[in-house]
Every structure is written in C-alpha cells, then in structure tokens.
C-alpha cells in the first residue's frame, strides 16, 4: 500500500529507515514526502469528506471543475500540509507563500505567515526564521479560493541561496493510519484502472466513456486479426496463465471449464489472420539491434533476452525470452513501429522508430530469444473456441469478430468486496487477477469510491498513476531516485565498459523532479504528446510519444508544483534590457553563453562534454521563475550541471560594467533579448 505509493512518488525512503530492498515487510515509520490532509468544506448538514495523501512538495493547485483528490467532491476545500525538513546545522531561513486562496504557515509550532494569497502578491516573512539542527516541522494550512480552486507554493531562502521550493528529497513525514488508508485507496484506484475492472463491472449510472481523462477507456488489444500477429502456441499459453509472461498483466487468468478450452480459444483466434512474409534478418541487423536496445533505453523496461535477470528493482523488468515464441516476425517489426495500432492502450510507448531501427530490434530480439524453451504445441477446436469467447467475457475488453455475448459480471454498485475477483483464495469462476493480499485490500478500500472517483478530475492523482503505468521513472529520475535505466547502467558498467550513448547519466537524460515547475504547461503537454521536437537532439535516447494521456500527465506534473493549467503570464518586453542581453550572451565581453548553447540557427561555439539547449527553444519552454532560479545557481538544481554559476551569494556578477553587475537584472536582460528573438516571445 504505502510502500507502493512511496515508490511511485518518493522512491527512496528517508535515510533513517532501512532500505526497501533490505526490509520489504518492515513497518514504515517515516517516508519521504509531505502529508496532505484534505477536507471538503460543507455547509451545515453536509457529509464530511476527508482524505489524506502523501505528496512530494509543499504545493497545491486546483483549477475550476477539478478536485484536489478523487476522494473529495469538487468544491471549497482545506489542505493541511505537514512535513519535517532536516537541517545539517542550526540556521535561518526566510519563507514565502505564493498563489491564490488563503494560507497559514507554521514552523516548529510558531505561526510565521498568515494571510490571503493573490497572484503576484506573495506573503513573505519579515525576518529570517530560526531553524534547528535536525528535524524542523513545517505546517501549511491552505483554504481554497471561492469556487474550490486555488494554488499555493511554499519556498524558502537562506544566506547561501535565493527563494526556491524545498527539495522533495529533504522532506519526510511520519506514517499514520489515515495516511496509510489514503494511500491504500490510491493504490486501489490505480489497480482499478490498470486491471480495467469497469470493463466487466458496469459502472451504471456513470458512463464508462466519460471517466476523467478517459482513463477507463482502456481496453485490451483488437483480436480481429490477431492470428496474423502472434503464434497459436503462445496464445494458448498466455490464456492459460498471462502472469507466466508478465507479472503485471491486465489480462486475468480465466478459469476455463476444461483444460483444452485455452487451446480451443487459441485455435479460433489464430485463424483470424495469416502472417505476412517474414523479413530476412541479417547478422548486422541483429548486432545493430542489440546496441539500439540499450541506446533507446529498452533495457529500462525489458530484460535483455540473452542476458541473465538482474536483482533488486531491475528484477521487475519485463522479460522478453518469449518474444520469438509469441510474435510473427513481420508483425513484431510492425508492432515496434506502431505499438498502438492494434492496441491503442498498449503500455509499450511509441518511440516513432524508423523501419531500419524496428528491423534491427526485431532481428536482435528474435535471435536473442531463439534459444528459449519452446512452448507446448497447441491444437484446438476453433468452432468451440469461438463459442467460449462469446461466453467468457472476452468481448468486454477486446474487439472480436463474433456476436456479443451476455454480460456475466455483477454491476459495480452491487459488488461484494469479499467475493468474486476479490475473494480470499480466489473464486471458482471469477477471473484470476493474481492479486496479492495488499492489492486486494487496496481494491476493497477503493471500492466505496469506485462509482465516483474515476469521474472526478484530479490531475495530480491521475499523473501519479500514469507516471507508474507509463513507466516514466524507468528512464527519468524523480525526487532523487535514479531511473531504472540509470540503475541498469550502474550495474552493467560494473562488469563491462558502457559507451556513453548507452548510459542515461552520461547522456544527461533529464530528471522529472522539477519538470512541472520548469516548463510552460503548453510546451510540456506538446512534448509529452510527441508533438514537439526534442530540445536535446544530441541524445541517442528519445522521448516516446504519449499522445493518449499526455495532456493529463502534463497537467498533473504542473499541479505537483502548485501551478495551474495556463502558461505563465508573459513578462512585459523591455527593449532596452534586451540590448544588454545580446552582449551578455556573447563570448569575450559577456558570459559566453554561446560557447555551449546554440542560439537559433547559430551553432554553439565550443561544446564540451555536454551541449546546452538551444536558447530560443529554452526561452519558449521555460517558466521565467525557473529560468531565474537556474541562472542564479544551477548546481542547486543539478549538482553535476556543466552550467557555470555566474552570480555570487550577494547577487552580483563580475560583469560590473553591465547593469552595475546586478545578476538579477543581467539575467532578465538575457531573457528579454531571447524573447525579442522568438516569434512567440512571452
């Protein structure tokens, strides 16, 4: 329950705790994050609604028609955020609150800020607040604005750094029963969506197709020509036990009437199409495919079929030893190029592979998996199989060429949490989802909300589920936790030298920690959906397109840092400042930004180790406040950044002849100059 969610948002437990791998079943005392208690304000007589959750930051953002939690109906709410931040040394900090609504901040039990928040009018402590060495308790109480919307963001500043949000990895919170219950509900919500429960259990009176972010639209692959894609033996084996091939399969194991049923269904499905001619793969293709498999980050989600499984978190990667037994070769190539063609909700993301890459990867996979133990030969009665498909509920999730059968499962509202799929020890006739006890408990905790929660728009919750479902953290670090790919690289490099293009750290795959605070929401959405080119064209890895859920994921990532849906309002243009900015970019008399950064069509002068992002693109994608924070001290956001720090602790640079050496003014001048060169300057 909680462990699962901490893995989702927080990844690494507080240093005082045993590591997850060491103590999987140990009770948790503290976890990383912020405890957020949510209460729905009701008029007299209204039923109380409350929820508690774990969150990475002191930030809340809710737009109109959204809710801060799927377990609260939309409307006025109060959020109480608490966490401890540990200081290595007694120190002083200033605090600042921004947003819309009303907020009150206490530090170690003393109220330090209290008041109404309006855009552009932050609350700020008049004097620095003393913090103790060790843990310091922060509590932020936030009341939403008039229609149940609002935003709040907490930042702090010290002698050595300017205002910035408190890094997620430095916040911890004790675990209590309410938090555990809230996280369990969320776990259940994620399972409910992933296992597509509402496909079989009619959610009337809600409509399946109207769930928030269309999350319940998810269905299985189109089976109408599956015989052209996969092999009959594999179909039979999959039907017998999907979890033999992937532990987190959405497809349940059906309890057929007799052992040959799976063979019959496989026989009918296999007859639905004939495989296209297999391409002739070459040794060169297979070798290239092996490299591409690593360079594209396939290793982050998949085991290499010709390598041994790896321990720890890497053990959860999907094995591919069955690939040759499953796929018709030509269909595998087509699938790699367009994974969503026959399965719009396939979890495999669309890497927009060239045919050359797809052929190489297919060649590599089919050869590497060729030595796997063959599956039993399956022979069955296709006519009987068709009948089974009609009777077994396959059509609830799959498109098939056969008349609809009658619904078999009870409606959602009538579910008994102790029976059916959720029955302890399984039910004789219900599909077997292979649920662990903790998962069954989570689903039971969620069930009372199942008729409402999926239809409430809570982008932050949706994104949290999707970050896991889409495996974003396989390639990206988050809140201080390295990506799976990075862990793979560390483990692999210990045994064999790894070329930089196979190492996500060497390549500089960006972290997701600040992405919602960093990027303009419109740019972020366009990029996640695959509609914008990568700002890092030098990467051999590539960001797949997540068109289906990209908008929801992007809005959730933005809410995570307390920002609303809209792009940041543009900073008014200042032509005079822009003139200074041009000089400041230049080599020699300026900071020499052009040394590592291209500007428009003008390439970087001298890239060393790692290029910088083209600056006109940067200007369009970045939030102004993040840009300022980054320039002030890049190493506070990325300790290994190659970007120099130009401002000293007093906010001065050594280019004293420009704007009197005032770092903030100089950075603004560069922003203005870049803005004057972009067509959509903000």
């Amino acid at each position: 329950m909680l462990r699962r969610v901490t893995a989702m948002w927080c990844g690494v437990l507080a240093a005082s705790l045993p590591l997850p791998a060491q103590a999987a079943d140990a009770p948790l005392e503290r976890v990383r994050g912020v405890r957020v208690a949510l209460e729905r304000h009701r008029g007299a007589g209204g039923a109380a609604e409350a929820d508690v959750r774990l969150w990475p930051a002191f930030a809340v953002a809710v737009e109109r028609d959204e809710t801060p939690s799927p377990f609260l109906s939309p409307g006025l709410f109060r959020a109480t955020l608490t966490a401890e931040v540990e200081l290595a040394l007694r120190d002083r900090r200033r605090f600042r609150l921004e947003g819309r609504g009303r907020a009150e901040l206490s530090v170690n039990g003393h109220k330090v800020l209290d008041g109404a928040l309006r855009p552009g009018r932050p609350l700020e402590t008049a004097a620095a607040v003393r913090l103790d060495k060790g843990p310091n308790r922060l509590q932020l109480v936030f009341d939403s604005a008039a229609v149940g919307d609002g935003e709040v963001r907490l930042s702090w500043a010290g002698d050595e750094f300017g205002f910035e949000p408190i890094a997620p990895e430095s916040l911890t919170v004790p675990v209590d029963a309410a938090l555990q219950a809230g996280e369990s509900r969320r776990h259940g919500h994620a399972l409910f969506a992933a296992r597509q429960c509402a496909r079989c259990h009619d959610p009337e009176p809600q409509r399946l197709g109207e769930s928030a972010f269309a999350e319940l639209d998810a269905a299985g692959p189109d089976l109408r020509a599956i015989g052209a894609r996969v092999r009959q033996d594999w179909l039979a084996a999959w039907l017998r036990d999907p979890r033999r091939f992937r532990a987190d399969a959405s497809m349940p194991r059906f309890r057929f009437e007799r052992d040959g049923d799976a063979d019959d269904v496989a026989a009918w499905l296999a007859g639905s199409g004939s495989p296209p001619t297999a391409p002739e793969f070459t040794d060169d293709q297979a070798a290239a495919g092996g490299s591409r498999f690593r360079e594209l980050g396939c290793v982050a989600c998949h085991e290499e079929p010709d390598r041994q499984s790896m321990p720890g978190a890497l053990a959860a990667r999907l094995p591919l030893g069955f690939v040759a037994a499953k796929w018709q070769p030509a269909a595998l190539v087509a699938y790699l190029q367009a994974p969503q063609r026959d399965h719009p909700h396939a979890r495999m993301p669309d890497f927009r592979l060239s045919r050359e890459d797809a052929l190489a990867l297919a060649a590599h996979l089919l050869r590497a998996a060729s030595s796997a133990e063959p599956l039993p030969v399956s022979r069955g009665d296709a006519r009987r199989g068709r009948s089974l498909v009609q009777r077994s509920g396959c059509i609830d999730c799959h498109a098939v060429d056969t008349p609809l059968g009658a619904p078999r499962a009870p409606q959602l509202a009538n579910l008994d949490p102790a029976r059916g799929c959720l029955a302890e020890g399984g039910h004789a006739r219900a599909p077997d989802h292979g649920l662990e006890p903790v998962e069954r408990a989570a689903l039971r905790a969620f069930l009372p909300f199942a008729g409402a929660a999926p239809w409430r728009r809570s982008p932050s919750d949706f994104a949290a589920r999707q970050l896991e479902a889409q495996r974003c953290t396989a390639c990206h670090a988050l809140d201080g936790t390295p990506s799976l790919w990075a862990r793979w690289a560390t483990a692999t490099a210990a045994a064999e030298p790894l070329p930089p293009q196979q190492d996500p750290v060497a390549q500089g795959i960006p972290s997701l920690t600040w992405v919602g605070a960093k990027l303009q929401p419109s740019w972020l959405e366009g990029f996640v959906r695959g509609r914008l080119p990568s700002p890092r064209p030098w990467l051999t890895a590539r960001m797949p397109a997540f068109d289906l859920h990209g908008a929801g994921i992007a809005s959730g990532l933005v809410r995570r840092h307390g920002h609303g849906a809209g792009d940041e309002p543009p900073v008014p243009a200042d032509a005079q400042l822009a003139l200074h900015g041009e000089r400041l970019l230049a080599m020699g008399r300026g900071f020499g930004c052009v040394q590592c950064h291209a500007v428009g069509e003008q390439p970087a002068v001298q890239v060393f180790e790692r290029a910088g992002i083209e600056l006109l693109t940067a200007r369009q994608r970045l939030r102004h406040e993040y840009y300022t924070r980054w320039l002030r001290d890049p190493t506070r956001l990325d300790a290994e950044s190659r970007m120099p720090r130009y401002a000293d602790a007093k906010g001065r640079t050594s280019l004293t002849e420009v704007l009197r050496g005032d770092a903030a003014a100089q950075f603004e001048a560069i922003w203005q100059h870049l803005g004057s060169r972009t067509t959509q300057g903000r």
Partner: protein
Amino acid sequence: MRSLPAAVVLSFVPVGLVAQQDEGPHAMRYGPLLTSTVECGGRSGTTPKGLVVRGGDLGTVVFDTELLRLSAAWTDGWLRLRGTAYDGSHGPMPSRDGMPLVETAPGPGWAHAGSFVDPRPIPYGPLPRDWGRFRGVRLVAGDGVVVDYEVDDMAVRESFTWEHERRLVRTLELGPSARPQSMVVADGPWTTLGEAAVRAPGRFAMLQWSLPGPSSEGDRAGIEPTPAPVQQVFCALHGEAGPELAVAAGRILLQVPAHARAQRVQLVLARGDQDQVAAQAQALLAAREVRPLAIEPAAARWGAPIVTQGVRGDDDGPFAVDTITLPFDNPFHSRMRTAAFDFFADGRAAVSTWNGDVWIVAGLDDDLGRLEWRRFATGLFDPLGLRIVDDVVHVHGRDGITRLHDRNGDGEADHHECFNNDVLVTDSFHEFAFDLQTDGDGNFYFSKGAPVKPGGRGFTRIVPHHGTILKLARDGTRLETIATGLRAPNGIGVSAAGVITCGDNEGTYMPRCRLNWIAAPGFYGGVAPTAHRTPVPAQPDLPLCWMPMEVDNSSGGQVWVTGRAWADLDGRLLHLSYGTCSVYLVLMEQVAGQVQGGVVRLPAEFSSSCMRGRFAPHDGQLYVIGLQGWQTSAAREGGFHRVRRTSAPLGLPTALRTSASGVQLTFAEPLDVATATDPDSYGVEIWNYRYSSDYGSPEVSVLHPEREVERGKPNRDPLVVTGAQLSADRRTVSLRIDGMRPVHQMRITWNVDAADGRQQKGELHHTIHALAPASDAPTER
C-alpha cells in the same frame, strides 16, 4: 624532357577556404611568427611543433622545430585558425590556407651519417641531440625571422623571404662541419616521381609529376582522355661553391661537403603548372648576391604602452580583491585570456595569454592607478606556464620551454631561445601545457594534459608525456617524469622543500577533482591510459583530498604562502579552482605517513578563473590570474587580481586534526564559548566516490553503499556530533563524532560566533585516508 604518365596522385589541391580575415581569431595581429601544430596537408602532413613564418601576403613557411625541416611553404595566404585556442573547436588545428609551393615528408630534415631514416621510436618529439637541435628564433630588422639550429657539428642559421613572383628564398648560413651534410629541400607526391632532374650541374633541380585528370572518367565513357596537368617544383642554388643540389628517391636534396669555414647559400624555390623548365631555370638562376643574414634585433613594433587603471576592492573582509585591469581593448585585438605570470625583480610582472602573447605590466603599486601594459612577445605556442628566472622570462608552451630575450633593450623580445623542446606533443586539442614552476635548486616543473577525445570522454593516442608532471634540470638538459596517470593537471605547486602538488579534473578514470601531494617521484594519479608503466596499478595513489563539484569542478594550480602581508597564513598551501573561480586554504595533517586534509574557501570573488597564483616579492600579496577557455564560472575572458590580506579577522579554521573520536578544528581567532561548545553548531556528513574507467563518479553512501540516488543529488550520510569542546585559547574546537572512519569525503559545516560576536559560518571538505587513535581533547572549558 618528357611528360609523365598520369599516375601520380597529388595532394596539392587548392584549399579554397578563405578565412574571414577580420573576424574571430583572424582579427588578432599575431606578429611575424606563430608557433603551433599545423595541418599542412599533402606530403608534409601535420607538424606538431611548427614555426609558422608569415611572409606578408606573399606566402607562409612552416618550419618543423623537431625534425629541422621546412615542412611546407605556400603562397597567397597564411593559416586557417582553428582549434580550442582560436575558434574554440575541439579537434582541428590551424591549417594551411594557401597554394602549396613546396613540401617535405615527415622525417629528419637533415641526414645523419648519410641517413634520413627517422631515428625516433615514435613519430613525436625532437631528433636526438647528436643529430640536430633547434636553438631558437630571432626577430630581426625588417620584419625578418631567423631560425637557429644545429645539425651534427654544424650550426645553421636560416631565413625565409618571399619574392613577388611567388618565389621563396631560403638563405642558409652553415657553420663549419667536419662531415658532409645533406638536407631535404622538397619532396614530390606520395609515389615515385615521374621525373626529377638536375641541371646546371648541382645548381638547378626540379621535380615534375602529373595531377590526376579526368582520364578514368573519359576511359569509361569511351572518350579520349584529356592530358593530366603537369606540376613542377623548381629549386636554384646560389652562393658559394661546394654545396650542390641533387635529386634522389623523388626528393631534391642539398648536399653540403665537409667544410672548414662557414658557408652561405641561398635556395630559390618556385612552382610551375606547365612545362616551365626553361623559363624558370632562367629566372631562378639569374645571378643574385647572397648577402649575410641580418641578425640585428628587430625594432619595437607594438608601440607605446597601453595604460589601464586598476580597481581596489573593498577592504571590509579579511581579503580585498583588487583588479589589475587588463588591456582588453588593444589595437592588436589580442585576446587577453591571461594564463600565467611571474614577477621581475623590480616588481613588474610578465603575463602570458593563451593565444601566444607575453605582456609586461608595470605600476603594480598600492593604488594601481596607472598600469602600463607592453606587448613583449607574440607567437608562442599556447603558453599556459610562465616563470621568470634571473629576470629572464621562461614560458611553457606546447612546444617546450622558451626563454625570451630582449637583446636590444627596446622593451620587446627579439630572441625566442629554445631552452628545452624534448616534451612530446601530438595534435590532440586537450594536450595542454600547464604551468611552470621551479624548486629551490632552480629545476623546472610543469604538467601535461592527457589527450581527451573531443566531447570529453576517453582518450586519443597516448604518448609518454601525456598526463604527467615533468621535471627539467635547471640547465635545460634533462627531462624526467615525476608523476603519471593524470588527466588535466591545470597547474602545480612546488614547496620550498620540493614537494610537488597538482590538481586534477573529474573525467574518465577521475571520480572527482583531486588535490595531489607528490612527495616523491613516481606518483600515479589513476588514469590508466596515462599510467606509463607496466603493469598499470589497480588503484591510484591517494590524493591529499577529494573535492565535490560545488567546491572544485576544474582545478587550477597551487601556491604556498610566502608573503609577509599574509603572515598569519605563512607557509600554508592554497589551492586554486579554475572552474569555480575560487581560492582555497588547504588544511593538512599527516597520519601514519599519509598526508591528508581538505579545503576551506577564502572569502574572495574573482572576475575570471583562478588558474595560477604567486606571492609578489615587492608587496607580499597574492596575485591570481586566470582565463575563460573551457567550462568555468568565469565571467570574463581573462582576469588578473591581487588578493590583499586586510587587518580584518580571518574568520576561518586554519588547522585540522582527525582521529577515531572526532575532529579538531583550529580557528584563526577565539570563538564564543556558548555557540562553539554547542554540538548543534556543527554538521558532519560523509560520502565516497567510485574509482572506475567511467567519467566521474556518483556519490556513494558510506553507511548504505547499496543506496542509489539520482545522479547529481547528494548521497551523503550524516554523522552525529555528540560533543563540542573548546580549548583554553578558545581557538580549537574538538568535535566528538560518532562513526569516524576513513572516507573519501567528509563535509563539516559550522555556524558559530567568534569571541567578538561576529557570526562565523563555513564549511570544510576533506578526506580521511587513515585515522589517528582517539585523541585527547584540548584543555576543556
């Protein structure tokens, strides 16, 4: 004479790359010569140490100071200036920008005992001394350049002049020689020549070959092949009888019989593209007087000094940083990327710049009100090291150590004397020639970068001096390797006792920046490809300390405090950071024979990087210089600062002692008892690094080595400070710390008050290789 078959591939292709002469690196006026690795192309290939002599707009000569050959000469242009020091590109070097006239293949320019076979084990470095030796170059009256070298027992002086008919005139003064000598004048294309001939016995020679024409295309198309164009190089010999031209094995040679008295000859070279033998022979053989070489030093060419005004820094802290304003705006467009410096006895300083200048600045007095800058020398090879010995400027460039003399006393160097050029250099962009220091005996020390590949990871071809610290005997005769396994040791320090220090930069095989303490020769820094020993040690020798990125991400040199103005830090070591533009005080201890310690940042801000530091004899203050050439936080291309110790309290710890029970920090001034004895005033965290062939290292948890965190995020374990005691003089704090152990990195932070009430907040990053037994606390308060 017959035409040749079109069989010879000729690489003399017009370059057609006309550089923008008034932009970028071409805007700078480099003077009559420039020393560089030069991609001459064709037969001459790349010349690692090339003396590029510019003949106005007429032509350019590249003289190979290692092989004593004229590598190439071309007309109608000079150089295409590419490379890290010029256009910033990583990989290419300056290359020919003109029409080829004459080339010689890589190999000795003069024969030894009749042989031209290259005697060197690898194709880098100078010829053996008994074969020949480059002595230097003189700038002589009339924009002339005279090259001095020795061949066998024969002294040679040579100059290059150009005539308007695209003719190159080489004038050679050959000292007496007891043996016959032979010099390569020109090589033809790669394969055997079609024809070579000598006419006017011994006085005129030519090489002739065909350029590849469109014949093969014509053959395929069934069309009559067009005749391939013919190329010719002509050479005429003038001067005293005895020497003769000869042609052998596809090359023109100058044969010089043994001679008891000096001889003077002149070679006139020209190129033809048709059958111009008769006309060229007539022109080139036309009688000419071979005059003695002018060796009168050139008159000053860079004009009156440029005056700038320095800026005194604020005196409100323990250190005031004064700016010695550089002449950024100078009429020569010389880029003031200041790389190294030293002081003359009279308090003036000589400053080298990355693009080959040495400037002399006068006026380094208290108020810096009038700084006079004189361009003293130009054309040096990326001189990132400079030392003044006996008031003679010695510069360390990629070509070795050069002494600069002002023979006529006009304020500009007119003689670049080669002090030692044994150092090996390849065409790697990253093979920087760092620093130049001397020990108490006058021996020289400098360091060499490893040839990092463009992009920063891995290395290109390694030669023996890559990634080393080298020691050169005070008389310049013997070069030896002191330390190996280094990556980018941008600066060294030499103590009075002869201890060598250097920094090194995170990269391949280098987990983090490290400060090395090299007490004895043989130190190994960890970069396997530059280990230069077999077997390669499995582990590097231990550094004095490691430094995290935020402290130092690209190290500079070190300097020992010797200035009287810094009396409270006299004898202490300072470490400079190029990347973070900082100066650090090094706190050291010795435990079980191992030197270890850490660094504390001095409160001083600089406009450019901190690469080299020296204490000035005339005022006892620290001077720091640096440039912006690769990744750094430096805001300016160059910066020269004086760091004045004021009368304000230092506010820093000045001594460190670690033990199994904790850490003792001795502060410069007494502390407030209440805050100093509060354990909550201190924070301690530890972490490790991982030594591997990877680029850098993540932080590795000491207490939970299996814990992985996002790269770039701290992975540190706090240690609990259980007690803090203060010594009787209230300067030494003894911190009792649970879990003391050897660690790559310990960070100690403090927030205490001084006895006078001022807040003292700071941090120390240090390394513990070995722990002393639990120590007794100082007298308790």
